[in-house]
Structure formats: C-alpha cells, structure tokens
C-alpha cells in the first residue's frame, strides 16, 4: 500500500512540473517523470511475493512467477516514451529556432 502511495506521489510531482513550470525543457522532463511513475505502478501491481522472474531455464524446476502481462505491456510503453520524448525535443528545438526562447509565456506573446 505505501509503495503505491509513493509511486502516486512521484506521478504527482511530474504533474506539478507540467502545471507550474514555464520552461519547455522542464515540461518535457516532467512528462518523463509521469511516464516513469505510470510504468512502475503497473509493475508494482503485478508483483507476487516469493516469486521469480517469468523466464524458465533448462533443468531448473519452475517456481511461482510474477505476473508477466504488465511487464509485456510496460516494455513497449518504455520504447514509446523515448519516441515521444524525441518528438517533443525536436518540436521544442524548432520553437527555440523561431522564437529564441524556451519560455512558453513568451512564445505565446509572440504568436499574437
């Protein structure tokens, strides 16, 4: 229970960054924090006490395993996170090129 709460707190830290920061780089990093928290939460829910990783090895007796389903979904989610981060970085650079700033309030002012 307390791990879930801490994980949710991590998510809220990311949300705080998205809502209050005005530097585009900080906003991208906050989105990253939210992504970490979401991924970690799914794996936390799938953990089973006194179990091993969901991979069998030759000649070893199969012990109880943790839930493999969230692991499979989170694996692809990590990859997508990097893809979207790259897209956001490129968009931020493009904005920097045009307005010469990362401050979102200034960008808004210039667009009229």
């Amino acid at each position, binding site marked *: *229970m*307390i*791990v*879930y*709460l*801490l*994980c*949710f707190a*991590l998510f*809220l*830290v990311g*949300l*705080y*960054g998205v*809502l209050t920061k*005005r*530097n585009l*780089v900080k906003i991208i*990093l906050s989105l990253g*924090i939210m992504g970490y928290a979401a*991924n*970690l939460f799914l*794996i936390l*829910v*799938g*953990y*089973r*006490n006194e*179990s*091993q*990783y*969901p*991979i*069998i*090895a*030759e000649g070893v007796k199969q012990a109880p*395993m*943790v*839930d*493999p*389903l969230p*692991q*499979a979904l*989170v*694996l*692809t*989610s*990590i*990859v*997508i996170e*990097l893809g*979207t*981060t*790259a*897209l956001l*970085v*490129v968009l931020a650079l493009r904005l*920097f*090129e045009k307005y010469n700033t990362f*401050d979102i309030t200034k960008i808004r002012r210039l667009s009229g």
Partner: protein
Amino acid sequence: MPVETWLIFILSFMIIASIAALEIKDILSSIVAIGVVGLGVSIAFLFLQAPDLAIVQFLFEIFALIILVRAFLRKDYHKEDPAKINKILTGITVVTLISIFLYSVPALNHLPPFGKPLMTTSQYYIDNSAKDTGAANFVASIILDYRAYDTLGELTVLFTAILGALTILRIKSQRNIIETAKKKKDGMTVIVKTVTRVSCWMILLYGIYIILHGHLTPGGGFGGGVILALAFLNVMLAYGKKFTANWLNINFLYDVEAASATLFLLVGILGISIGGAFFANYLSKGELFHLISSGTILPLNILIGIKVAMSLFLVVWVLAGLRFEKGEEV
C-alpha cells in the same frame, strides 16, 4: 530486507531526485537528475523480478539522456528567470495536488494488496506459454505471440513519433552536415579511432546476440536495437559525420527503417493465410531452449531490433546535424 523496504527506499530517492530536477535552475543538472530517476526505475524493476524491463529501461534511459543533452546543451538560454514565477498559482497547484493525493488513499486501498496480484489471465499465460509458443521468456511470448497485435499498434506509435521528429529536422540537418564536413577536420584522435575500430564490432555483436536470444533470455528486439544504435553512435562520435555518412549510406538506413516496419506487418498478414488468424504463430515451434525455436517470435524480434536501431540512430543523426545561430530565421 524484504522487497517492500527496498522499494520504499528507492521510490523516496526517486521523488527527491525528481523534485530536484524540477527545481534546479541549470538545465544540464536537471537532465542529469532525470537520469538518476530513470536509473532508479531500472533498479526497482530488478527488485520486482522484471529483468527484461530493467535492461530495456536502462538502455533507453541512457539513450534519452544522449538525446536530451545533445539537444539542449551549449545554448545560452539555460537559466530560468526566477523573478516572474507566479507564487499564488504555484501555491494553488500544490494545494490541489496534495488534496488529490489524500483522496487517492481510499482509492488505492481498493487495489489488491502489494504482493498479491489477481493473476487470472496471467496464470493461463504462465501455465501454457512454454507449450503454446515454445519460448522460454514468457514476456517475449506475450509481446510477440499472444499480444502481437498490441505490439503492432505500439510500433505504429513509435514509427509515427520518429517519423515526425525526422521530418521536422531532416532537410535542414542534411544541409548542415554537408557544410560541416567541408569546413573542419572530422572525428577524434587516432587513439579513439583505433579503439573504436575494435569496440564497435564487439558492441554490434552483443546487440545481435541480445536480439537473437530474445525468446530465451531477457532483452529481445527492443533492448538489442538500442545496443546496435549505440554501436553506430560510437562510430559517428569517433570518426565524424562525413566518414559515417559514407560508411553507412544514410538514405539506405531510412529505407531499412521503413522496410522493417512493413515486413513486421507482412509477417502478421501471412498469419491470416497460413495460420488462420492475424499474427498467428505459423512457423514450427521447435524445441524449447533452442536458438531456432518459438516460430514467428524470432523473426519478429529481429525485425523490431532493426527497426528500433535504425530509428534511434537516425534521430541522433539529425540532431547531430542541427546547428543554428542565435536569432536565425527559419
């Protein structure tokens, strides 16, 4: 110590690191702090018995750091303007978020307690995976056999995101790379080049090993793909862009990236005609624990590995070519 205690320790550490990342004024320091959070996630995955995820998270974290540092370093806008931050708005946000946190306590109480998951569908996968798919790594068997359709959707998202990034930067960056190559001497010293000549092949070999053994050991296409991209990156940093452009033929890499995504879809469509369902596993399952086994999981892993390697390398490639002066018009 029980797992839960370790996790509480790691999570508290991550929360502190992420608050630090958001509040530090210097951008480079906050990027490094984010790296600490990401590696903390990787360690937490190890404690939660998810070696697959730990490897992939570690590699992607390193790659994300490379992209972020390359993109945001050496620009003199770094410092935030502290005078203009609206204190009232920040206060309201903090109070709202704390109340959300307090309301979440009863909601999280309804979840199954930590360490006792529901395990309904998952128990079926654990019991039958080795028999159904012939893969020793159950995570790989879920990603590329039971739930291959989901993976196709997720690959589409990745493909679109990378395509967007490349489209925005490609033309400008191409021009810059040609200009830079003309102007100055490319690459590092002869010592670095000589070491790279050996190390790059070793990294490539390790990446190929990780991809090919995706159905037997932790790793698979996603992790191995990043290692391949890092090997190319190694060459690019040591020998310079001009040499790399000649060696790799960048336009060909764009084609390979698109082709591997299409081939992934083709393997799925062939499943309709041969196996009777989209992404059916129609090849021979082989013998458990052997390299050539588990039907279509092996080819799909290879395709994902190529796709991830090409797209990530190309993103860093176009970012490396990016270079603009202050106030330059678009």
